[in-house]
């Protein structure tokens, strides 16, 4: 019985690096609390944690070796040889999701560093880094226990981050998010418990094997199917898929803007990672049933998100509803899965769409943050305040316009166009025509409001506007603006990156 657990720290580096950052920030804070001159040390440690995680992801991707760690040994089971199963696996899927989370979080950190985080550096940095560690762990999680704990580690810090706004609206937004998170955790745990009860396994590969056996009783499939539905519902809250989206607009509007960006980019990545890991890696055998559920969920989400976004005037609320719609787009390809064989393409399309969405959303949010900082209405500013932005701030307006084009999938934003094509292709290939048609209609709906916003940028300034404030962009914000824009342009020039983000097999 005596075994010494062996851990491959290199494989775990993308998770451990942000956690080390957390520990160091806390140690520095404990040594000298409230020392204003150490503020930059805190910032540097947080950035270093994320950069180290990014470096680890890059190194692992370049190295290319198949790594897996924290394994339970295989052996002779009743049904023959059982392969060893691991709790953490480094694969293309893992690394891609980790890369999105780390880059997105770095952007949000730089946006927040002198904004909402300035008064509460330690909690902000610790919570943000923990969330990133959670997403990174989630991307590599290959058993149900790790999956649940990693998903909570990824989503719970968001509550604290939202509440950092320190006013009544911020507290309300935080509590809304907390209650939603708790309710969704309950559903997820119930679902996971049912899947475990049906299969008797915790490791996803073993669950997949157990469910793909030839002589499965209907009862096992019924329990596992119910568990799957509940699990999807639980994760649906995190992704803000309709009908689990009700927290989204209030929370986005009540959160500090860079944190709203964090919710839109990193938390969405966590949600997709959980869906993909659970459904595609653990339950590919049930793809026929969950494919339909996800397809309906995605179609409803896209439609409702777009329809409500059409009516929004406040920029943040429009973005909140737009992220609901985009979450539907991210889920859409998974709805095309009809059997285990069609799962890998669907996952590749989903993750590809997420890459495009994350880059474009970060670009749009950066400009919104900048405008909110230079506008008397702050976070409550409306779309009308973007009128004539192209004349006052041509660079920011160009980035915003390009980001919106990418989100809408209009020609200059080739990245978004390709991502939408990639997302719809599995639907067409597998003959899920109804959903494909709904998706096509929603492309038009999305274009309507993104275009309306974009057109305001180049419109002539209104008569009632006072003297425009000259923007003073901080270096960190400029870095995010440039970086996000560069990513959007790069992916638009080389759209095959988005299209073929996950070559090879799914593991």
């Amino acid at each position, binding site marked *: 019985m*005596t075994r*010494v*657990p062996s851990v491959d720290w290199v494989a775990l580096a993308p998770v451990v690096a942000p956690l080390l950052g957390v*520990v160091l920030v806390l140690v520095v*804070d*404990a040594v000298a*609390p409230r020392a204003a001159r150490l503020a930059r040390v805190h910032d540097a440690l947080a950035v270093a944690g994320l950069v180290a995680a990014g470096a680890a992801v890059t190194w692992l991707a370049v190295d290319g070796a198949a790594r897996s760690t924290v394994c339970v040994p295989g052996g002779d089971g009743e049904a023959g040889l059982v392969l060893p199963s691991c709790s953490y696996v480094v694969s293309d899927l893992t690394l891609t999701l980790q890369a999105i989370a780390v880059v997105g979080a770095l952007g949000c950190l730089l946006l927040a560093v002198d904004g909402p985080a300035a008064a509460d550096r*330690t909690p902000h940095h610790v919570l943000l880094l923990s969330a990133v560690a959670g997403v990174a762990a989630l991307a590599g999680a290959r058993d149900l226990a790790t999956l649940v704990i990693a998903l909570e580690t990824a989503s719970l810090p968001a509550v604290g981050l939202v509440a950092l706004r320190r006013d009544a609206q911020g507290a309300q937004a935080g509590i809304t998010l907390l209650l939603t998170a708790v309710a969704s955790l309950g559903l997820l745990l119930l679902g996971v418990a049912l899947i475990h009860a049906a299969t008797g396994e915790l490791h996803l590969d073993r669950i997949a094997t157990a469910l793909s056996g030839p002589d499965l009783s209907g009862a096992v499939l019924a329990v596992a199917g119910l568990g799957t539905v509940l699990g999807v519902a639980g994760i649906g809250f995190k992704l803000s898929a309709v009908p689990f989206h009700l927290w989204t607009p209030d929370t986005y509007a009540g959160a500090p803007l860079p944190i709203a960006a964090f919710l839109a980019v990193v938390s969405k990545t966590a949600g997709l990672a959980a869906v993909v890991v659970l459904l595609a890696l653990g339950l590919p055998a049930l793809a026929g049933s969950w494919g339909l559920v996800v397809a309906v969920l995605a179609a409803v989400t896209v439609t409702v998100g777009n329809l409500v976004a059409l009516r929004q005037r406040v920029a943040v609320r429009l973005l909140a509803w737009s992220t609901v719609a985009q979450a539907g787009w991210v889920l859409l390809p998974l709805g095309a899965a009809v059997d285990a064989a069609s799962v890998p393409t669907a996952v590749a399309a989903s993750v590809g769409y997420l890459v495009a969405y994350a880059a474009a959303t970060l670009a749009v949010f950066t400009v919104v943050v900048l405008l909110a900082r230079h506008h008397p209405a702050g976070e409550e500013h409306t779309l009308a305040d973007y009128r004539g932005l192209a004349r006052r701030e041509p660079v920011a307006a160009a980035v915003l316009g390009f980001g919106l084009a990418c989100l809408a999938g209009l020609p200059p934003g080739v990245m978004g166009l390709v991502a939408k094509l990639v997302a719809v292709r599995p639907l067409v290939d597998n003959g899920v025509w109804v959903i494909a048609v709904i998706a096509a209609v929603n492309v038009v709906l999305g274009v309507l409001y993104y275009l309306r916003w974009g057109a305001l940028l180049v419109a002539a300034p209104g008569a009632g506007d006072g003297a425009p404030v000259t923007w003073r962009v901080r270096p960190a914000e400029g870095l995010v603006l440039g970086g996000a824009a560069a990513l959007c342009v790069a992916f638009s020039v080389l759209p095959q990156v988005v299209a073929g983000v996950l070559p090879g097999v799914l593991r």
Partner: protein
Amino acid sequence: MTPHPYVVVAATVAGGVLFFAVAMLANRLLRPQAITREKLTTYESGVDPVGHGWAQTQVRYYLYTFLYVVFAVDAVYLFPWATVVEAFGWATLAEMGVFLGVLALGLLHAWRRLALRWT
């Protein structure tokens, strides 16, 4: 002959009930009783009872309780851990050290940030 384990459980429960019942009964029998309506009303410093007895607690209690929950969960892991330290040796000592160290850092943060100070 050893008794059935559940007999012991039942005996313990019965003993507990008996203890409580005897104490209350003795109290009842020994004390003088002259209850009036006036005596039964809630009384506090001469103020007539109005409304209900709820007084809002400080939100800080929540933080204390929350920290208590966190450390209760952490203590739960300690019990099984103690049974395998010998088998797993240093590696598991390091595991638990990291776990406890991280949690202790949280407590240290709360302490250094004066969240644990009442005034």
